[in-house]
């Protein structure tokens, strides 16, 4: 299954836009998490956590799934394949894991956003959850930058499946 060049360019553009958007949105989320944790101003803390809840549900989560979906389409529609090259396989595992961890954290993010909207959070309130959210944002950003680097450099290395498919295709093309 190979896409036409025009469709391939469109899919690649969509994948890059969604992926870079995800990184940017997470960087913004990180700024909100730091502000919520360190600010002495109650209004800033409240605004930061309410905003982080909105950013998570309306920006980060949609971008994460869009990036994953377009990445799979892009891999399956080009000769790279999804399981043929280690860099594609690693990116798939990294992004699936990051999305899974993100979804596991949305409950805590929504909870802190709800509490921030209803009450005034002081420095020690929900400190464990707030620190956990910050740590996950940092970890998520590192993981996404790792995936982006793999996608940019495309280091060589074929999986056993990739070699087998390549030999099969070569055998078919040389009767």
């Amino acid at each position: 299954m190979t896409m036409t060049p025009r469709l391939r360019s469109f899919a690649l553009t969509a994948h890059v836009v969604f992926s870079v958007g995800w990184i940017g949105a997470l960087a913004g989320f990180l700024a909100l998490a730091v502000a919520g944790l360190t600010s002495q101003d109650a209004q800033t803390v409240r605004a930061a956590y309410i905003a982080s809840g909105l950013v998570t549900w309306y920006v980060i989560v949609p971008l994460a799934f869009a990036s994953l979906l377009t990445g799979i389409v892009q891999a399956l529609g080009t000769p790279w394949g999804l399981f043929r090259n280690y860099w594609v396989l690693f990116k798939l595992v990294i992004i699936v894991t990051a999305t899974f961890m993100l979804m596991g954290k949305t409950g805590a993010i929504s909870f802190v956003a709800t509490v921030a909207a209803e009450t005034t959070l002081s420095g020690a309130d929900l400190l464990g959850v707030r620190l956990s959210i910050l740590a996950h944002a940092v970890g998520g950003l590192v993981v996404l930058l790792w995936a982006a680097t793999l996608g940019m450099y495309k280091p060589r290395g074929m999986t056993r499946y990739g070699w087998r498919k390549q030999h099969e295709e070569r055998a078919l093309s040389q009767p």
Partner: protein
Amino acid sequence: MGAESQPRGTEETRMAHPFPQPDPGDDTGTPRWVKVQGIFVVLLLLVAIGMATGLVNRLSPFGLEGGGHGPAGDRVGDHAPSESGH
């Protein structure tokens, strides 16, 4: 992008062709970068599994349960969310 103008370096960092090309003489086993980054991928998976099972929160000093204890945490910690949902 600028990556095309990067100097070609070692086997680990060299950019591949835009699409994979048959290279029968290059079958030298698993590249080193795969082994190194594979370790990090496995670690990432272990963290994710630990998070899903709640193990990370029990071990972490700032997990949900860790932060929920104490006077400050108790104030709003009665209805703390589960790690996996809302």
